[in-house]
Structure formats: C-alpha cells, structure tokens
C-alpha cells in the first residue's frame, strides 16, 4: 500500500465533502474488505482514505444502514421476514470473517473480481487503461460475463445488488451538490455505450442507506447461487427472484442475475413472459438465457443460469 492520510468522518455528509473533487486521490472506506485488497495490489494509490465505519448510522424506519454488516443483515428478523432474498444473499456472501466486516454499502460498490481488472499490468476498460483484456482470443474468461458489454466482459460480483433490485429497494445517497434517492437498479445503469465506473454515483457521492418497503413481491423473494467450490467462492451465477402470485397468475415478478454481466442483469424478457399469465417456470428459464452471448470459455454458465432461474421460481411457486 502507498502511504495515505486517514480521515475519520463523523457522518456521511462530512465524508462526502472530503471526497468530492479529489478523484482517485481520495477513497472511501467502510468495512475495507474489498478496498484493502485493491490498495495492497496498488490498483488504487490514494493520498487520503476517508473512513466511514465510525460515521453515525443514519438509518431510519424502513432503512438498512449502508454500514450494516452483511452478518447483521443476514441475521435481521425484519429483513428475513419481509425481504428473504436480501437475507439469503447476505448469508451466502464470502465467509463469516468477511461478513462481519463487509458492509451493505461496500457490497453494492465493490469492484469486479475480473483478474485482468485486478492486475495493473493488463489493459482494462474499467480502469481506463485501454481495451478489455478478457474478451480477445487467448484470454482466460471462464468466470466472466455471458451477457457481456462490448467494452467490458467482467462479471458483477455483488450478492446483495441482485437481491435488492429484486425486492425493489432504493438507495439513499449523500453528496455536497444534493442528496438523492435512486432505484437500486438505476445505480448500475450502463447507459447506451457502457460505463467505466461501477455505479452511476457521482464523485464523492456515498450510499447512506438502503430503503426497503415491504410488499407482497418482496415478501415472496429468494436468492440462489451456484459456486464451483462450496467454501469461499464467488458465484458462477446467482439469481434473485421475487414473485407476486394472484390465484396462480403472475401479478408481478422480478428476476435479477448476478455474475453474468458487468452489472446486475435483469432478465426482462423472462419477466415479461411471465407477467399476467400462469407461472411457467420452464419458459421463464429459457427466456432468461435466450439473449446470452457467452465468451470463448464460459458457455457452461448459460445452462447454469437457466437452472438457477428454474430453482428460484420453483421455490417461490411452492
């Protein structure tokens, strides 16, 4: 790690002010579980690290503090009862040690595990050092995206993001130019031509809390993932799904996939197919993967994703 000054913020507002306008020279730290690995490999060499972990937890009613740890979310009775996908996603993440330190905000903002992103000697669209190294011939892309963007084929690593999108969560953000509340899904909007940064957050903008509103859709939600190794491993693919059934007819549904695209991937075609009809799990599983364009080394992820959609919906329909 390069030497840095360490700033402890009392609240998100102070932290956001300290970060804004400094670009890569200042970074925010919550649990630190992703940040420290990036600092150690010198992918980030900031002059200042702004520590959020002691900031006042600004969570009100119906809110999940951005500083809540994954372990806290996994164990929270209200979350388990009303947003089962979120609790399950938190529980499946990483390891007990990481879940005790890693936070909701950090999980949403973590960087991809793409090994080319994480090695400064390769060019990388996301790092702004050139073209994607994972797409061309000869690249090792077995764990990468099956819904790649033409400029980046990384896989989104977050467990929580698909789950939060599936239950219709919003994120409350703090910035000196004005606070705002965004749909969790908008956070990852790639726009028409792809985006280098992991989220649409402005420089210095921080997620203060996640807003959760109980609904029939959120209550009937789940999260499933598939790992190559059962012990600590990032999922080959994950699916968070939420289903509102009315007498066997799908009133509303959300199917959000992790680990298959540079951002959480909403299986819109499958959702549209289901809405207003009798639940057809097989058709949904087929539709979810219909548009997949796998890379040279990851075609196997397509049937896996289909199977995960099948499992998630089957679980919710029973």
């Amino acid at each position, binding site marked *: *790690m*390069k*030497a840095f000054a360490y700033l402890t913020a009392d609240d998100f507002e102070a932290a956001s002010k300290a970060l804004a306008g400094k670009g890569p020279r200042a970074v925010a730290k919550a649990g630190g579980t992703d940040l420290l690995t990036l600092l150690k490999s*010198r992918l980030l060499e900031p002059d200042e690290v702004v520590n959020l972990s002691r900031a006042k937890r600004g969570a009100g009613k119906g809110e999940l503090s951005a500083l809540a740890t994954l372990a806290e979310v996994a164990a929270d009775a209200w979350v388990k009862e009303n947003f089962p996908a979120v609790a399950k996603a938190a529980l499946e993440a990483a390891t007990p040690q990481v879940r005790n330190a890693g936070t909701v905000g950090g999980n949403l903002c973590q960087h991809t*595990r793409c*090994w*080319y992103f994480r*090695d400064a*000697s*390769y060019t990388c669209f996301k790092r702004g050092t050139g073209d994607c190294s994972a797409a061309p011939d*000869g*690249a*090792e892309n*077995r764990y990468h995206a099956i819904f790649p963007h033409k400029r980046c084929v990384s896989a989104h690593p977050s467990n929580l993001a698909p789950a939060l999108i599936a239950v219709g969560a919003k994120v409350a953000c703090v910035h000196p130019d004005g606070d705002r509340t965004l749909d969790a899904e908008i956070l990852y909007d790639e726009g028409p031509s792809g985006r280098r940064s992991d989220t649409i957050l402005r420089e210095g903008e921080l997620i203060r809390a996640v807003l959760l509103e109980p609904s029939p859709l959120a209550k009937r939600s789940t999260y499933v993932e*598939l790992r*190559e*190794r*059962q*012990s*600590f*491993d*990032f999922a*080959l693919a994950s699916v968070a799904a939420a289903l509102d059934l009315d007498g066997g007819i799908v009133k509303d549904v959300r199917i959000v996939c992790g680990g298959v695209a540079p951002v959480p991937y909403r299986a819109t075609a499958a959702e549209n197919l289901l809405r207003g009809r009798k639940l057809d799990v097989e058709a949904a599983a087929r539709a979810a993967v219909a548009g997949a364009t796998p890379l040279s*080394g*990851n*075609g*196997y992820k*397509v*049937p*896996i994703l289909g*199977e995960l959609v*099948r499992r998630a919906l089957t679980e919710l329909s029973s």
Partner: protein
Amino acid sequence: MSELRLGFPDNERKADVEIPPGTPPPWDLSTDHKVVGREHTRLDAVAKVTGRAKYSYDIRFKDLIYAKFLRSPHAHAKVKRVDLANAKAMKGVLYTESYEGETVRYAGQHVAGVAAESEEILDDALRAIVVEYDVLPCVTTVEEASNEGAPGVIEGRGNLEAGREQGNLKRVQDAHDEADIVVDAEYRTQVQTHSCLETHGSVCRWDGGKLTVWSSTQSTFAVRDGMARTFGIPQSDVTVITEHMGGGFGSKFGPDAWDQFCARAARATQRPCRAMLDRREEHLAGNRPDSIQKCRFSVKKDGTLMGAEVRSQGTSGNATGGANVYNPGIYRFRAAYSKQDTVLTHASSGRAFRAPGHPQGVFALEGMIDELAEAIGMDPLELRRKNDPNPVRLKEYEIGAKEIGWHRRKKSGSDAGPVKRGLGMASARWGHNARPGAEVRCTIGRDGSVILANGSQDIGTGTRTVIGLVGAEELGLGLDDVEVRLGNTNDPYGHGSGGSVTTPSITPPTRAAAFEAKRELLRHVAAAVGGDPDAMDLKDGKVTGAPRELTFKQACGMLAVDQVTALGRMEQKPGGGGHLYPPFTGEVAGVQFAEVEVDTRTGVVRVVKVVAVQDCGLVIDPLTARSQIHGGVIQGISYALFEERILDRRTGDQVNADFLGYKIAGALDMPEIVSIPFSVSQGMTTTGVSSLGEPPTVPTSGAIGNAVANALGVRIRSLPITPAKVLAALGGVR
C-alpha cells in the same frame, strides 16, 4: 537364528533371520508394543493450537530488516535496464540487487531485489524501480511449445526433451493383437501448485562469519549445505533452524534464490533479514507438472490385462525434465510400454509434489482400467483383483469395498438423476523407502531425563512425535517421559522429508540410539547392584531382570557418569550393505473408493464419501496416521475438482495467483472420509515402519474420476472435473 513374522494376520510369512549383535530385535507381528501403535496427541499440539509455535515466518529481532524481489510481468524478455536510483534514494532502503541483462523465462522471474527497514518502505521501493524489457514471444502450453518455429525457452535447445522410454513396443503390439478389446483414450491433468500455507522463505542472521538461517524447509541439511556452498564457508559455520514449518509437500528442498538474496542482504547490512514470499509469489515456487497421456490399453474378455501403451507429454515450465507420469503401473500387464516427454514452456519450474508423477499417472491408468472393465462388462473391482499381484492390496480391496458398500454400484449412467450418484475406485503403489544415513542421539541423564535429538524437521507429518514414541517404547517409558529436539543442524543428520522416507528412515536410528543408551545405562546398573546387564531390560518405567526392584529414575541415579549418550543409525547388512531383513512385499499398497453425486443440471460434483485403506508398514500411531491419510485424500479431492494454475496464454502470467481464483478444497467441500491405516509387518529394518506421506494422495482423483463416470455414463478425462467440463460432456453447452 530368529524367526521374523512378516505380513498381516490373514497373510503371514515367517522368515529366519540373523540379528546382528548390538542391534535391537526387529519388531514384527509378535511384538507386544506398549506405546507404539496406540493413539497419542502430538508433542507440539499445544504449541500449535495456542499460537506459541514459532515458524520461520515468526522469527523476530528488534533490528530485523525485510527483503523481496521485484518480478517480471513478462514470461519471455531480456532485462534491458534496471533503474534502482529512485529506490536507493528512499530513506530506509538498505540494500539492492539488479539482474539487468538477464533473460526472463517465466512471468514472475526476479529482476531486482531490495532490502529495507520495514515492509512498507520495501513496498514503496519496489514500486519505484523502473525496468525496461525487450519483450519476446512466449509459449505456455505443451501444444504451443511443440509447434514448429515456436520460440525456444532455453537457447540452443529445442523445447522437446525426449524423455524416458520403457518397455518393448513390439511386445505390447503383439499383446494388443491377442486381446479381445483395445481401447484408445487421451487423459489430461492440470498444473497444481503446492500452495504451502507458510510461504517459502527464511530469516538470515550473520554473527561474524557464521550464518544462522531460520528456514521454512523440508531439508534443514540441504539448506545448510546450499548456503555453505553459496558463501564459500564451511558447513560448520552454517546453522539451519526449523522448529516448525507450515507445509512443503515437496517444494522446499534447499535454499532458493530469495533465501540466498536474503543472506546477502543480511551480510551486507550486518542485520538479520527476513525474506518470505507473498501468496502470489508462492504459486511460482514449484508445481505438479501437467500431462497429456495418450493411452492404448487392451484386455481379454476374461479380464486378463494385455497391453498398456502410454505416450505422455507434460510441461515442467522452464525446467528440463520432471513431467514423467506413473502410467502404466500397479497392475500386471502382459506387456507395457511408455514414452514420456517433458516440454519446455515459459512458465515457472515444476518441483517434486507429493508423489511426483503418481496422481496424474494414476488418474489416467485407473480411468483406463475402468474403461476396459466397461468394455468387457466386468465389475471394475473384479478386473483389478484379477490383475493385482500385491497381497496387501487384495486384502485392502475387501476392506474398502465393504466400507463403501461397493455392492450398491449401479451400471454406469443408470442412476435416474437429475442428481446422479456413482461409485469409483483406484489404487496406489509406493516404495518402502527406508534410507540409511540418518542419525539420532539419545541422552539419558542421571535425573532420568531423556532427550532424543535429530537435526531434521517436522513438516506436519508428526516426525517429532514418532521419534518420541519409538524412543519411549524402547526405553519402557511413556511419551511424556521423553523430550524430542528437532530442527537444528547442529544435531545429528536427518534426511530431507521427501519420498515418504522420513518415518521409515528415522525410526531405526531412534531405536538404535535408545537401545544403545539403554544397554549402557543397564551396565551402570549392573555395576551398582550386580546382576547380568544383558538379562536386564526396561519395561513400564522399571528395570526388569535386576537383583532388586528399580524404577527407571532410580536406575538413572546409579549412573557413574553425568549422562549416557548414544548415537543410533540404521544398521545395514554387514559387508554388502542393504537392509538387515527381508521384506514382506518391499512396497506400500493402498486403495481408495469414492462415492460422488453429480448434479446434471449444473455440473457440480460433490464427493459424498471416500474410503482410504492404506498400508504403511507398522503403524506407529493410528491417530497421526489417520491424519496423514485424511490429508492425502483431501489434497486429492482438491486436485480432482478445483485446483488449476491458469496462465494467460498471451503473457504467460498466472491470472489466478491467489487463494480465490486458485481454489483449494475448504470445509464445505469435505465428504465423509474413512481412513483406515492398514498395519503390515514389513520387515527390512528394526522397526518395519514404511512410507505414508505420499501414497494416500495418489488414488483419490482416479477414484473420483471413475465415480463421476459411473454416475454419468460419460467419462471426463480431464482434471479438474469442473461444472464446465461436466456440462460439456453431457452436451448441455452450446
């Protein structure tokens, strides 16, 4: 003449032997052990569970400095210029080296070195070094390196190192002609890195012209000799200390470049220096070479194995040789032939890795045996029994088959699924590797204290405890009554812990030392209380055969000298050398059975149960023996399903050089494992103890591969067996 009872209760053989005077009577099936063969907790267990055990990584001095290499991101390049100016200008940078002008042959080869006051300064200094390379084209796979016009790895020689050729091809072809079925198949195995948890490295300190090295090594004496050669000083001026070490598995057999650099930095600065690799570098410090094995095997319909023909290629990186596989082997073929080539690539060198060549060879061999069984419609266990010459393994088949419930095995692919179960099996054959040359010193003090000392190391296999148990047995004491000193080259010589030689080679010298010290003690007792010392012995903490009751402590109190000391070694046959006694089989036999569950919708393989029956000669301690067998099985599972060094073909750089991308099996991946140490009176030495470290990791991947094939009805001939490969084999990937 005495009678030596060899073998095991169901299959005993007697041999008439001459016991040389001055040596302890050999242990065999008649021996009634008091300590040996029973479960004990390790002598160093408390130190390890409390964090008090000091590994080389943990050696600290107030004025300790830190050393590390800067490494090339390119696999093939000329180091044009190394600019150390910025690094040298940093406060706290104490020593540097440059390897300007050298040729880089693998990504990660060192190009500069720095030693500094702290690890933070060291990190800054390495970042500040500017290196210019002439980057050259690289080859990272056997196929690429074999292409015509491929860039050469070592100047002046081709990339193909034509290796060992064994057997008579003509006779094999005749056997094929005579056979009913001939099967051709190609098997592949991956590169596996040792992934020692304590990384390679050392702490070096000079006191005047004398060097002390705290080394994470499997061979303290090899480090001593290597360092003495490096610095042109006598061996007596080098002390190597390895009190505890965090895993080696074959990769830590001498001083490495970083150790030598560390010692140079320590000498230049006259301060103790530490150089321990980081996790990324650790993946460079040795690996199990990969393999492509083209096999043609044949069989008669009655199950007689006929011809075995293997052509294998593998890469040991930029090392010449070392990619041989153990295939064929184990079973009796009418005729066998193999040709084994090593292909040079721009990758870090292979090193010995727990049963070098065996897991990769046996994965293919055992797959082929199952394919033959399938082809003639014979039960795979039956086919093996019919063609296995080893009496120990024949018994082990029986034990293992019963434990796994082999009768439940269905026709391959017949399980309804979608999660399909399957059973598979495979075997291991290893040498009885008792090697002369090691020495143990036994000291009995007048106060009854006993010290057993040897300068070699305990790499986690329990050597310290084994020495204590054997010494205690000979002296009629308990494990707690003896102290074992290990891991300092100022004590008597011990072998490197490799080839599973340690326990078979260290137990005879331990016995000899304790026996000799005991005889000397009893002579003192006889001088004090009368009686015939040769009729006396030590048992249960007491002297037997003396004119009066004496405890061990009372006996020691009668020493006319401060202490008695004896140096024991493994006795050899007088004159011609060789082992004192005949062997039972002279080899070590093992079998494993695996049950798996394969989810045909996701391709995920879950190992449900493994049964490992493993012969290791006389079992010294069933508890630590089971640990060893468990460990071999677990590494085998990891090899079968998860581990793979992934090199980017364009750069030769390992993209998964950490513990997230390089996946070793964790707690949630564990099946039920039943490890059954199978005790055999093996003869040969005074202890009849044989090898155990390596063989239990040999059959696991083969057994799992066969179980997966049994579950699916489709065979995956490539390791690791990942969801990607399973789904591809099932035709589910477009």
